[in-house]
């Protein structure tokens, strides 16, 4: 592996290197194939870009959606988007980070200028690549493998020892942050936690119901607990997930298969009709409607967090909303990446929440396919790969 040593910091000047880095990456050559550990070339950062040495990356279900074809992309591609690392070099004009800084790449950038970034509640920056274009803003990629260009994923691409992202896709974090843990703040944890505290804005003393107890669902529970909910009901078809849900804050867990009544009736009875907030953290259309029907008809709020299967329509009875319910969805928990991710890392450092419960497996990067197997079998919550 050829790489440039950490450059000294010169305040006020950008350090441009023209050195291509050869390193190891997990390349997805085509649909449904195992990831292939290859040598890739990573071009230096252009203007307003940052090259990052990735030190830890989580495996998220959305990465698997690309492999399975549920999410569209061009091939070959380097997936992965939940990571942490250290800035290796910066392109011209970059001012917000410098080599040596600890950072988290952001699959939702924050340009600060578009209508989403300007709005207090928006976070879907126009610069995000959510449709599988696979390139950076200038229309080109920074990766090559075996002479071919390799596409980016969500303008992040973290299953690689080095990646290049745009400055607007980088959150600078606490220099003392443990990178092998805070990588989860790059996606799974923040998505769930934000759904509760930022999107739903769970209120103290309320009753919450969380459908789906995977990594993001557990993070929702942590958010509800942080917001002071008095009752947090975890719902999953797999009762093996109940113990962990309780350890992060669920007050009770139920399995819809144990009941003959519809789940919304079960929840209403259990709580004397007081469910204020429900969360769908599975990605299943029927569950989205169940979750909506399960929140209080007049003051309830339901948040869709789980990504639904593409191009399928969600069908519901409009009377569910007529009585006063609110239905929301969010991407990345509603967080504005550059503003909020550093604060979440600081909260982690202040022990406001614990990520250990989410990290069930730690593997070396070259065992990435094992990590995907664990995900597909439902045996892991989050596997973190260490580079």
């Amino acid at each position, binding site marked *: 592996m050829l790489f440039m040593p950490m450059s000294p910091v010169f305040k006020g000047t950008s350090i441009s290197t023209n050195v291509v880095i050869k390193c190891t990456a997990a390349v997805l050559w085509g649909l449904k194939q195992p990831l292939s550990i290859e040598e890739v070339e990573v071009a230096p950062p252009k203007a307003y870009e940052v090259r990052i040495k990735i030190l830890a990356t989580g495996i998220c279900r959305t990465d698997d959606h690309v492999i399975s074809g549920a999410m569209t992309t061009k091939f070959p591609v380097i997936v992965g988007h939940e990571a942490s690392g250290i800035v290796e070099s910066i392109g011209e004009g970059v001012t917000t980070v410098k080599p040596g800084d600890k950072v988290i790449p952001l699959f939702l950038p924050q340009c600060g200028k578009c209508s*989403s970034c300007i709005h207090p509640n928006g976070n879907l920056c126009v610069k995000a690549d959510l449709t599988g274009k696979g390139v950076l803003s200038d229309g080109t990629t920074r990766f090559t493998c075996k002479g071919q260009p390799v596409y980016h994923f969500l303008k992040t691409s973290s299953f690689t020892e080095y990646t290049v992202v745009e400055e607007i896709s980088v959150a600078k974090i606490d220099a003392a942050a443990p990178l092998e843990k805070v990588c989860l703040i790059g996606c799974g944890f923040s998505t769930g936690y934000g759904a509760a505290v930022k999107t739903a804005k769970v209120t103290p003393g309320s009753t919450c119901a969380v459908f789906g107890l995977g990594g993001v669902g557990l993070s929702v529970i942590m958010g509800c607990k942080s917001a002071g909910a008095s009752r947090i009901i975890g719902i999953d078809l797999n009762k093996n997930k109940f113990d962990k849900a309780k350890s992060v804050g669920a007050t009770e867990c139920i399995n819809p298969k144990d009941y003959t009544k519809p789940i919304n009736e079960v929840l209403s009875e259990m709580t004397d009709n007081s469910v204020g907030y429900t969360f769908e953290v599975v990605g299943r259309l029927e569950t989205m409607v169940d979750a909506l029907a399960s929140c209080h008809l007049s003051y309830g709020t339901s948040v869709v967090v789980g990504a639904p299967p593409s191009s399928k329509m969600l069908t519901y009875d409009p009377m569910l*909303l*007529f009585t006063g319910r609110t239905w*929301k969805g969010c991407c990345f928990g509603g967080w504005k990446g550059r503003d909020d991710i550093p604060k979440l890392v600081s909260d982690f450092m202040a022990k406001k929440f614990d990520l250990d419960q989410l990290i069930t497996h730690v593997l070396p990067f070259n065992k990435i396919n094992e990590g995907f197997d664990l995900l597909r079998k439902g045996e892991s919550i989050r596997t973190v790969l260490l580079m």
Partner: protein
Amino acid sequence: METAGKVITCRAAIAWASNAPLSIEEVQVDPPKAGEVRIKVLSSGICGTDNHTQDGTLPVPLPAILGHEGAGIVESIGEGVSSVKPGDKVILTILPQCRECDSCLHAKGNFCLKEDILSPVGLMLDGTTRFTCRGRKVHNNFGASTFTEYTVMHEISVVKIDDAAPLEKVCIIACGFPTGYGAAVNVAQVTPGSTCVVFGLGGVGSAVVLGCRAAGAARIIGIDINEGKFARAKALGVTDCLNPRNFKKPIQEVVVEMTGFGADFTFEAIGTIETTVAALESCNLSYGVCVVIGLSPAKSQLSFDPMKLLSGRILKGCSLGEYKTRDQIPLLVEDYMKKKIDVDPLITHRLPFVKINEGFELLRSGKCIRCVLLF
């Protein structure tokens, strides 16, 4: 009043069967039981929902006396009634406020669980009716029934208002006005300088426009297939009027292009699946708020792309503008009396009660915003 405790014989408009004109008949109205109030109705608006119940798209038990947007004077009260007394001016609404159920106890909830809207029974809470016509029992409607000279309602649905309130005007503060105005100021919470889109420029849509304007919206786009409504809409505050039939593209695409990135707040005040999806897709994908007010046909199902929600949009429904009726409608009446709000532009037609079917025609033809019946 000398009629207290006695059955009153008066005129009412009866819906004997769906999709047929209402029939003005003589009815007997029983005195109020415990917790009930008998009211001399002096004015009633005709609401779009009355139209849906009359034409059968929103089935209710028949025969019935429809109407739920009324104002009148208390004639007599049943045992235990304490919030109103004979002679009080009152507004008659579709949503009770019992102050005991968990909707009422919640700071924001207004869908009182003693409602008779979701699965209408058309009877008082004790399972009986107070109306008889030609010897047959006649149902009430949504706990109200205002197309009658006298009605009996539960105390929890009767709103005491200012003694000086002009009853021939404030009846629309029983339904149309708060439903639309509240959708803008309470539910969406329209912000100053924002861009709003209102689908449907009828009575409720017009009230939404008033709410958006009161909240300081900079741009209010009104959408209707009936261009006859545009002039009035502009007088109320609409800045741009669009007729979807003038465009080849779906109207939501037109709106997104016009606004650059979708509206801040959109409202659906019609009650069709197609326009509800259009309203959702017309608001900004990341921070847009869409409020659905219009009641879709019974047993209808709405389908939309869930990614529209996942990107960050907020979709809300509401009933009566999220106002807690007994607490907040009197305050709206006060605001009207102090000229802080103006409902007068919504009342475009007045007819004597006996011409009720003409009133329904005006509504269906789109020629009126609100037609008020006077007794």
